[in-house]
C-alpha cells in the first residue's frame, strides 16, 4: 500500500508569505498555505514514529483535514530526478525501522484561496516549476473533495531493458550511414536512436579504419566511449587544432606558451606549481600552502533548467577542487552570469510548431542565482566573488560561470601534494552517489518534451549534501593518511572519462562494470559507463588500503565500491558479468583522433564614431547610467549567498555603509597566516562587436587591475581564461577567436601574470524560431572571462573601494582617452561607435608597479578600478559606498564632459588619499604623467563635478539600487 503523508505548515509560513507577496505584486489577493508531502509504499511509512519525525509540532500539522481553499497545486519530481528531500525522508524512515533501500518521494502542495481562475493557477505553476523535471497537478476544491484529495503518485523509474548487454555496431557502412550514426546515435532494435555521438565524418572514418584493422566491429560502449573522449568538451579540439599558420594550435601556441615564457622569465620567483595538467591550476600561497583555482561553464543545461544547471555547475566545479592533486579543500566559490534583461520577455521557440518556448530571462536569472545559492550554501563554501553581465543576445543561451578556489598543504606525508599517479595494481574505487541515467548525452539536448514515466535524463539536479559528506570524509579525514595514490572527479563523460584519464598514469585499466552501484535496475552497460550522475569521485587505491577506505567512507554515510583495477597493459578493458565488452588500446582512445586544420578570416566590426550633442542635463544622464543593468547593484545576490562561512571573509562583496556591489574580494583562508587570497575578474562581451582583441585585452586588464587596486601583489597573481564563443565552425568567428587569443598572450606576458587553468565553450548559439515561425539564430557575443587569483601579503594592507574621510584627496590614475566605442554610454544612446578601448599593457604596467609600492606603504585610503560607465560610475559608486559627498573638477582631463565621465579607457584607478599621506603619495608617483588630482571628499551630501553635475548622493544611491531591487 502506498502511504501519503501531508505535513501542513502554519499560516505564517515564510514560503507561503513570499508567494502571497509575489501574487500581490501581480494584483491578486491570495491566501497561501504550504504542505510538504511525502509518498512511500514502505509499510513503516504509516508509523507514528516516522510521521512525528517529519513534523514540527510548533509549526506543522500532520495529515490534517485540508479545507478552506479554492485551488490545490502540487509540484513533484518526475521519475529519476534527484529528490534530495525524498532522500532525507528515506533516512528518517530508516530510523523508524525500514530497510536502507526504502524509497520515499517528496512533493509540495500549495493551497490557494482567492479569486483565481484555473488559468491563473496554471500560469503560477509554470512560474514556480519546471516541466522538464517536475510534474504538476492542479485541482479545484470541488475536484479535490470529489477525488478525496490529491492523487497518490510514486515517481519510480521503470526500465524495460533488464538483462541488457553490449550491442555490436556495424561500421561496415557508407559515409552517409556513418554520418547518420554520428548525428542521430546508434540505432536501437526498434529503429529509434540513442542520441547523437557528435563526431565529424573524419572522426567516424578514423574509428571505422581502426576497427577494420582490428578485424571486428566496435560495441556500442566502445563507440560511445570514443565519442565522449574525442568530444570538443573533453579534447578541446578547436583550441588544439592547427589554425592558419599556427601549427601548434591556439592553446599550445599562445596560452600555454605565455605561461611557459612567464615561468622561465620569473625563474626562482615562479609562482606556478600545477598548470593546465590537473582539474584545477595551482599557485603558491605561502611556505605551507598552495591555492588552486578552476572556473567552469554550465551554459546549455542552464538554458533548459536554470536551477539544475547552475547547482550542478557549482557542485561540479567543487569536485574539480576536491580532485586536484591529492585533494584540495574548497575554500571559496565564484559565480558569473551573462543574461538577457530580466524585465523583457522576448518570444522565441525551440521548435517550428511554436510549442516549446525559451524560458523568460527573469526565470533564468532567478533559477541560476538560486542554483548557485543552494549548491554553495549547502556545501559550506563561501561565495563572495562574482558578477552579472547583461546583453540581449544572452537570451537563448545564458552563460553561467562557476568556479572554486581550493587550499592544500604543499606537502602531504613528505610528498608534493599536487602530484598524483594511479599505479598498476591500484584498485579503482568509486565513491559518492549512485549511477542513474542522468546526463547521458548531456551535451546534446533534444528538444523533445519528456513524457511521464520516462526518466528525465538530460537535466540533473545536484545533491550537495551527499557531496559534502564525501568531500569532508576525503579532504578533512582521509587525505593526509595517504590512503590513495590518485583521485579525480566524475564530470563530463562520467566513469569513461575519470577512469580513462587516471589510467593514462598507470597505462591501462580493467573495469568490472556490473559492480557499479545503480540508482535503479535495468541500465545498459554503455549508459552506466558514460552516465554523468553527480557527486562521485574516482580513486586509485593500493589493494592493502581498499577495505579501510571503503569502511571509513561507509562510517560517514558515503557509499564506495571497488569496480576494477588499474593496469599497465596498455588496454582499456571492460567486462560485464565476465564477458569482455570493451578492449581497446589506450593510445587509440586518447590520441587516435585525426587533426582537423582550421582556417580563419577577420574583419573589424563597429560603426562610424558618432558626432553627438552633449547631454543637456548631466544629473539625469548619470542617474540613467547608474540604473543600467551592467552598472547597478546586484546586492540581492550577495545577501543570499553565504559569503562568510568558514570565518575567512575579510573584504566582502558589499562594501561601505552604502553597500556597493564590489568586483573584488579578499579572503584569509588560514587563521595563522595574515595573508589573503584576492579574487577578481573582467569581461566586456560587447567590445567584441568592434574588436575581439580589444574585448579580450580589456578583460584581462580589468581582472589584473581590480586585484592590484585591492592590494594584491602583482608578482603573485595568476589568471584563468574562459572562452565562451559562438558559431566556432565559421572562419570569421575563428578569426575573432585567434585575435582574442593573440591579445591575451601579449598582455599576460607583459604583466607576467601566467594562465594556470582555462576552459572553453565554443557554440553558444540559440537556433530556433521567432513568434511568426521564422528561423532565427541568436549568437552570444564572443566572450572571454578573465579571472584573477592573487595573494596580498597582509590583509591589513587591503584597500576597499569606499572613501574613508571627509577632506581626503581624490586622484585619477591612468589616461582617459576618447574611447566610448561599445561603452555603456553609447549603448544607452543605442550607438555602437568605433573607438573601443585599447589596452596599452606597457603603460598600464608602469602604473601598476608604482601603485603596488604605494599600496604596500599604505598610502591609499580607497581605490576603485574603472570599468563599465567609466569615471562617472566610479565616482558615483564611491559616493554611494561612503555616503559622503565629493567635489570634483575634471578640467585637467581635457575632454568634453561626457567623454571624460563615461569613456571606458582601461588601465585607470580612482583613489582617495588622506591629506597627511598626500606628499608621500605624490612622491611615489614622481615622473608618472597620468596622475590627476581631481578633487576631494566633501562635507556635503552631493556629488559635484564642476560646471557639469551636482546631485544628491541619496538620488544616486536610489538609482543604483532600484533596477534589480525586486528580485
Amino acid at each position, binding site marked *: 500500500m502506498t502511504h501519503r503523508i501531508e505535513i501542513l505548515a502554519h499560516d505564517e509560513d515564510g514560503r507561503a508569505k513570499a508567494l502571497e507577496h509575489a501574487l500581490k505584486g501581480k494584483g491578486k489577493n491570495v491566501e497561501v498555505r504550504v504542505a510538504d508531502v511525502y509518498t512511500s509504499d514502505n509499510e513503516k511509512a504509516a508509523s507514528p514514529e516516522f510521521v512525528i519525525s*517529519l513534523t514540527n509540532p510548533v509549526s506543522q500539522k500532520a495529515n490534517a483535514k485540508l479545507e478552506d481553499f479554492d485551488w490545490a497545486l502540487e509540484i513533484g519530481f518526475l521519475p529519476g530526478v534527484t529528490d534530495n528531500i525524498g532522500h532525507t525522508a528515506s533516512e528518517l524512515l530508516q530510523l523508524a525501522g525500514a530497510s536502507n533501500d526504502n524509497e520515499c518521494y517528496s512533493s509540495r502542495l500549495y493551497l490557494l484561496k482567492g479569486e483565481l481562475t484555473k488559468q491563473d493557477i496554471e500560469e503560477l505553476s509554470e512560474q514556480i516549476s519546471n516541466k522538464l523535471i517536475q510534474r504538476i497537478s492542479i485541482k479545484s476544491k470541488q475536484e479535490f473533495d470529489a477525488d478525496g484529495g490529491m492523487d497518490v503518485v510514486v515517481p519510480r523509474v521503470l526500465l524495460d531493458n533488464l538483462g541488457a548487454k553490449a550491442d555490436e555496431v556495424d561500421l561496415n557502412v557508407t559515409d552517409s550511414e556513418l554520418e547518420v550514426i554520428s548525428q542521430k546515435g546508434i540505432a536501437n532494435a526498434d529503429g529509434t536512436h540513442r542520441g547523437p555521438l557528435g563526431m565529424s565524418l573524419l572522426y567516424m572514418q578514423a574509428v571505422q579504419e581502426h576497427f577494420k584493422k582490428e578485424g571486428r566491429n566496435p560495441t556500442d560502449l566502445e563507440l560511445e566511449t570514443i565519442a565522449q573522449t574525442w568530444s570538443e568538451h573533453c579534447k578541446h579540439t578547436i583550441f588544439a587544432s592547427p589554425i592558419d599558420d599556427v601549427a601548434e594550435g591556439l592553446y599550445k601556441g599562445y596560452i600555454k606558451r605565455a605561461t611557459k615564457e612567464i615561468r622561465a622569465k620569473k625563474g626562482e620567483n615562479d609562482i606556478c606549481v600545477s598548470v593546465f595538467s590537473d582539474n584545477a591550476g595551482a599557485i603558491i600561497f605561502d611556505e605551507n600552502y598552495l591555492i588552486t583555482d578552476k572556473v567552469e561553464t554550465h551554459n546549455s543545461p542552464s538554458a533548459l533548467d536554470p536551477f539544475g544547471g547552475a547547482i550542478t555547475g557549482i557542485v561540479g566545479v567543487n569536485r574539480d577542487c576536491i580532485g586536484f592533486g591529492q585533494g584540495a579543500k574548497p575554500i571559496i566559490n565564484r559565480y558569473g552570469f551573462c543574461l538577457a534583461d530580466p524585465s523583457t520577455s522576448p518570444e522565441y521557440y525551440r521548435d517550428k510548431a511554436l510549442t516549446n518556448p525559451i524560458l523568460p530571462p527573469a526565470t533564468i536569472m532567478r533559477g541560476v542565482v538560486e542554483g548557485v545559492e543552494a549548491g554553495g550554501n549547502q556545501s559550506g563554501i563561501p561565495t563572495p566573488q562574482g558578477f552579472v553581465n547583461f546583453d540581449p543576445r544572452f537570451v537563448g543561451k545564458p552563460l553561467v560561470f562557476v568556479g572554486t578556489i581550493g587550499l592544500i598543504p604543499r606537502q602531504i606525508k613528505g610528498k608534493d601534494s599536487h602530484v598524483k599517479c594511479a599505479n598498476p595494481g591500484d584498485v579503482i574505487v568509486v565513491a559518492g552517489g549512485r549511477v542513474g541515467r542522468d546526463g547521458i548525452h548531456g551535451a546534446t539536448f533534444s528538444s523533445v518534451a519528456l513524457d511521464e514515466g520516462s526518466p528525465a535524463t538530460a537535466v540533473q539536479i545536484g545533491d550537495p549534501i551527499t557531496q559534502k559528506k564525501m568531500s569532508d570524509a576525503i579532504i578533512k579525514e582521509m587525505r593526509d593518511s595517504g590512503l590513495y595514490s590518485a583521485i579525480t572527479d566524475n564530470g563530463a563523460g562520467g566513469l569513461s572519462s575519470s577512469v580513462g584519464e587516471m589510467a593514462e598514469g598507470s597505462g591501462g585499466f580493467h573495469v568490472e562494470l556490473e559492480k557499479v552501484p545503480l540508482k535503479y535496475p535495468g541500465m545498459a552497460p554503455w549508459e552506466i559507463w558514460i552516465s554523468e550522475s553527480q557527486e562521485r569521485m574516482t580513486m586509485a587505491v593500493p589493494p592493502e588500503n581498499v577495505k579501510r577506505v571503503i569502511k571509513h567512507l561507509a562510517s560517514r554515510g558515503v557509499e564506495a565500491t571497488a569496480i576494477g583495477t588499474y593496469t599497465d597493459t596498455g588496454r582499456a578493458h571492460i567486462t560485464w558479468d565476465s564477458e569482455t565488452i570493451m578492449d581497446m588500446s589506450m593510445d587509440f582512445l586518447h590520441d587516435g583522433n585525426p587533426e582537423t586544420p582550421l582556417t580563419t578570416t577577420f574583419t573589424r566590426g563597429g560603426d562610424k564614431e558618432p558626432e553627438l550633442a552633449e547631454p543637456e542635463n548631466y544629473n539625469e544622464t548619470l542617474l540613467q547610467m547608474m540604473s543600467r543593468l551592467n552598472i547597478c547593484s546586484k546586492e540581492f545576490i550577495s545577501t543570499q549567498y553565504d559569503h562568510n562561512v*568558514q570565518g575567512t571573509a575579510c573584504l566582502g562583496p558589499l562594501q561601505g555603509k552604502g553597500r556597493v556591489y564590489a568586483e573584488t574580494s579578499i579572503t584569509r583562508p588560514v*587563521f595563522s597566516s595574515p595573508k589573503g587570497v584576492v579574487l577578481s575578474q573582467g569581461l566586456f562581451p560587447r567590445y567584441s562587436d568592434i574588436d575581439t582583441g580589444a574585448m579580450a585585452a580589456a578583460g584581462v586588464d580589468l581582472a589584473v587591475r581590480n586585484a592590484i587596486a585591492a592590494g594584491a601583489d602583482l608578482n603573485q597573481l595568476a589568471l584563468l581564461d574562459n572562452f565562451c564563443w559562438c558559431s566556432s565552425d565559421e572562419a570569421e568567428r575563428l578569426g575573432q577567436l585567434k585575435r582574442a587569443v593573440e591579445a591575451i598572450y601579449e598582455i599576460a606576458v607583459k604583466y607576467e601574470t601566467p594562465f594556470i587553468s582555462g576552459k572553453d565553450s565554443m557554440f553558444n548559439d540559440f537556433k530556433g524560431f521567432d513568434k511568426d515561425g521564422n528561423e532565427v539564430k541568436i549568437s552570444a557575443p564572443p566572450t572571454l572571462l578573465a579571472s584573477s587569483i592573487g595573494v596580498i601579503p597582509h590583509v591589513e594592507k587591503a584597500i576597499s573601494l569606499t572613501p574613508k574621510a571627509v577632506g581626503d584627496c581624490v586622484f585619477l590614475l591612468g589616461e582617459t582617452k576618447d574611447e566610448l566605442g561599445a561603452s555603456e554610454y553609447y549603448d544607452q544612446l543605442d550607438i555602437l561607435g568605433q573607438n573601443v578601448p585599447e589596452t596599452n599593457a606597457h603603460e598600464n604596467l608602469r602604473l601598476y608597479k608604482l601603485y603596488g609600492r604605494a599600496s604596500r606603504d599604505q598610502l591609499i585610503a580607497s581605490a576603485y578600478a574603472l570599468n563599465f560607465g567609466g569615471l562617472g560610475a566610479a565616482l558615483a559608486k564611491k559616493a554611494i559606498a561612503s555616503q559622503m559627498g565629493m567635489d570634483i573638477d575634471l578640467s585637467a582631463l581635457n575632454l568634453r564632459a561626457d567623454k571624460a565621465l563615461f569613456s571606458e579607457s582601461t588601465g585607470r584607478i580612482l583613489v582617495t588619499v588622506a591629506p597627511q599621506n598626500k606628499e608621500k603619495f605624490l612622491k611615489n608617483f614622481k615622473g608618472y604623467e597620468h596622475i590627476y588630482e581631481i578633487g576631494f571628499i566633501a562635507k556635503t551630501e552631493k556629488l559635484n563635478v564642476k560646471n557639469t553635475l551636482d546631485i544628491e548622493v541619496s538620488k544616486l544611491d536610489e538609482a543604483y539600487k532600484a533596477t534589480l531591487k525586486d528580485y
Partner: protein
Amino acid sequence: MNNTAPAKALILAGYGLNCEEETLHAFEHVGLQGEIRHLNDLIENPKELQDAQVLAIPGGFSYGDDTGSGNAFAQKMKLALWDHLQKFVARDTLTIGICNGCQILSNLGLVPGFEGKYGVRSIAVTHNLSARYQCRWIDLKVQAPSPWLNGIDRMHIPVAHGEGRFMMDEETLEKLQNNRQIAATYIAPDGTAADGEFPYNPNGAYGDIAGITDDTGRVLAIMPHPERGMFTWQRDDYMELKDKAQREGQTLEEDSDGMAIFSNAAKYFK
C-alpha cells in the same frame, strides 16, 4: 574543576554541518582543548561526552535542511544519544548550538527545557519571512543571564541562514520572557529594538529573538554566528576601522564581539 588541564570542548561534525573548523579555532583561541567529532563516531563511543565540559553543535546545513532545518540531525541524535545528552546537560557543562546547531537544539528540545524538562519541542526555528537565505551583519542586545553571555551587552556579528525565524505560541513566549530565557534580540544599529523590521530583524523572528537558553542558562541556542565575528578583520566595517586606527596612530584589537562568547566558556571552567 581541575585547574591544570584545560576544559575540553567537543565540536560535532557530519551530515552537512560545516562550521566545525572555525568553531574549533574559536575554542582553541581562548585556551580550551577542542576536538571535532563526527556524529557517527560519537554515537559509536558516547562515553566521550563524560570527559567533555563543552558540547558545540556548529552551523551548517545538516541534511540540506530537508524536512525542516536541523530536524533530521536532531532525530538521529535523539534516537542514538538521548540518554547521554540528558546526562551531559545535567552535569555542570556548557552546550552551544550555533545556527544549524541552534535549530538542532530546538528540535531536540534541549531548549527551552522549561523547569528542567528536556525533550519537549516547543520552539520552531523556521523559514525566514523573506523566504530567502539571508547573509548579513546584524546587531544584538543580550537579554538573559547565561554563563555564555556574561558581561556582554551588545554584539555586531553576522547571520547566515534560510530558516532562522523563532516562532512559538504566546504561552511559550511569555514563559521565555518571564524566565529570562531569551538570550539575545535583534536591534537596530542605534540600539532601539528592531521590532520586526527587516533587515535589522533579518528573518521575522517573534519578539526579535535571535537566541534562547534553557532554564539554567548553560545551554545556548543562537542563530547568529559569533565565530564569524570573533576577529576584527572579519568585520564588515574592518576597512573603515583599520583606516581610522591608522590615521589616529592606534592599533586595532585583534578580538571582536563574537570572541566574548567563547572566552566566557573558558572563564566558566577556570
